């Protein structure tokens, strides 16, 4: 809106429930985002073309073209962050959407603060702040340099195996993003291992022992039960901005 602070980003909200659409649009507009809201997939895809959103909030349950299909078609041409909205019964669809390239999800009903925090995190990541700008992570005496393949904790070197490095590499390249089991397995172990969630679990646990201050209460590699993992450290920073945001 003219006269107010400069816009923070352009957001497209796609939800078939009018009241949710309106509530989200209202909340985002009040915080200086520029918002377009659409009730179904077809018009949402057209809007993506001219509106060029910085982020898409996408409900899975849409009339006509469903959320998954919208996700797929958007990803075919654009890397714009996608935040999925779902209800608990759409668990499988949610994971599939993440596998298709969606970046995060929220389960309805949700509070607006959490919604805004996710949006901020996604926009920041997309803004280039975290995406492999640097491959060095520092926090509380922990220093990880992915490029140089070194992990130092309390002044001492930790030795990581080849697979652990590959896993750390995959996780740390997408700080803040929820990475599904399937995506990680395919990325680290290759095609054909997509369903070996137990293997992934074992290696994540090994990796945590080497980098987490308290492996039983992980803060760097956070579990999203049944869905995947999220890397919360931000490159080149001391402190834990992203971790605080996600907690």
């Amino acid at each position, binding site marked *: 809106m003219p006269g107010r602070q400069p816009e923070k980003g352009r957001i497209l909200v796609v939800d*078939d429930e009018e009241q949710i659409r309106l509530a989200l649009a209202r909340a985002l507009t009040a915080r200086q985002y520029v918002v377009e809201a659409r009730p179904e997939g077809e018009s949402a895809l057209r809007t993506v073309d001219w509106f060029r959103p910085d982020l898409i909030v996408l409900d899975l349950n849409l009339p006509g073209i469903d959320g998954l299909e919208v996700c797929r078609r958007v990803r075919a041409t654009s890397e714009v962050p996608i935040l999925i909205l779902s209800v608990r019964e759409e668990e499988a669809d949610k994971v599939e959407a993440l596998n298709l390239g969606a970046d995060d999800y929220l389960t309805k009903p949700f509070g607006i603060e959490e919604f805004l925090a996710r949006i901020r995190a996604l926009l920041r990541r997309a803004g280039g702040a975290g995406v492999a700008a640097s491959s060095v992570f520092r926090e509380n005496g922990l220093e990880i340099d992915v490029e140089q393949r070194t992990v130092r904790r309390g002044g001492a070197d930790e030795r990581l195996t080849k697979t652990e490095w590959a896993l750390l590499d995959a996780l740390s390249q997408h700080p803040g993003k929820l990475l599904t089991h399937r995506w990680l397995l395919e990325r680290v172990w290759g095609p054909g291992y997509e369903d070996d969630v137990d293997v992934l679990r074992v290696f994540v646990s090994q990796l945590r022992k080497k980098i987490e201050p308290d492996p039983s209460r992980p803060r760097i590699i956070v579990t999203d039960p049944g869905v995947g993992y999220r890397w919360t450290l931000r490159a080149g920073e001391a402190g834990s901005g992203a971790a605080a945001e996600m907690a």
Partner: protein
Amino acid sequence: MSTPYWIRPEGAPVRERSERRSALSLATLGARTRSRRIAGYAIAIFGTVALTLILLPFRDNLVPLSKGFGFLVVVVCAAAVGGLAPGVLASVIDFVVFNFFFLPPYNTFTVARAEYVAVLFVFLGISILISALLARAQERAEAAEAREAELRTLQELSADLVTSLPGRDTYARVLQRIVRVFAFDAASLHFDERLFGEATEPVTVGAADPIPMQWDPSWEGRAPERLPLTVGGRSLGLIAMVGDRPPLDPRESRVLRAFCDQLALILEDERLLRTATQVEVYRQTEEMRRSLLAAVSHDLRSPLAAIKASVTDLLDDGATHSPGEVRAALEAVDDQTDRLNALVANLLDMSRIEAGMLRSRAQTVDLEEILVASADRVAAQRPGIDVSVSVGDSASLVRADPVFLERVVVNLLENAVTASTKATVREVRLEARRSEGEVVVRVIDHGEGVPPNIRELLFYPFYSLERRGARLGTGLGLAICKGLVSVMDGQIWIEDTPGGGATFAVSLPAAESSSAVPPTPLPRAQEAGARNAGPST
């Protein structure tokens, strides 16, 4: 049990004699063999006596050989009629009589010439040989006849099994045949509980109560005949039969056992079919339950999500809201709370309907008044669509619960109006016509119409979830309408509107116009539960 339970109950059909004739009873086959044997003995004895009396005056004029041939005729006759035993008896008697009366010296057993001894024993030998040959031929004929009778009986018993579908009616007909063919009074088919479930009652014919499988000797009357039904060594049940008749002879048992094997196969077929059906029914119920749950949770969570988002937005200190935005957010919360409330009310109604707890307060209702009031209400909510009402002669008074009826009509009207918003003919007609003892109310629109294959399904809760747009309601409306209509002893169904569109029809019992009861005005008072919930689609 004071009286034997196989006493024919009052009014039970008496077996027709002519029916019995149709089957060559295996029992009569045995009886016939016995009577022929008796006839054979009679021929042996009385034939010999008669022949002796005839030949005696001429015994001096005849050579022994001629007399011998005469007796041979008696032997052949006895054997031909009665078989081996009468034949042998005749041979021995005639051997003695021939010797005593017709071989000189007469009236003694001594024989004058050695040659006669040879004649005598040749006679005896030939007699017995002929008897044996004749008897064997006859036995073969009888065996063939018996086998034919067995087969015919089996065929007759199986006729129902082969031509009818498995089921209790067929089993009853089959038992009827067994009872008739084997001259029992009553029979029961018991199903094995482990395979068919405890709920499977025995099929019984000819008696009011099933004939028990276990026989208590202290009861009066004869123990029932019991035949097990097995397939591959597994028992499927048994047939128990009682009647005023001798125990089954081996031939009858054989036929019945063969028949029981066939029946057992049919039972097994039915059992497998039933298991498959049960699995299928369970699967469908499960599927429906899951989609119902998903629908309910979606419908509950969507308004909750809107409320939560609006409220937390207002609570958040990080943003400044204009008074207009605050008002919009609060209105949204208000709106969604109403929606949740309506959904909960509908869910409660649905569960009341399904639990059979909803009672209709049926009274004589002026249909026209309700139709006009409903039409006005819907037209006021949804301007732009023309709603007309037409009530036929003598269609005005029905027996119905006025509150229920109004809910149903409003709900159908709202659906019709929604369906008409995109139609070219934007009008909805509401009409009532008398047909015999009923009045049929029709809500007629010119929208897209309903394909015949989903007309039934539309009345299931949440059926429309996948096809409905965001605009529509909870997916319970039509299910509730159906429930309300059926507690008012009416029916609801969907027809085509001529020229395109859907017609929802509701039939209700007509009230007689001669009745002095004045038409009931619509109750304004709000009642609990079903009576105050807003209608929905």
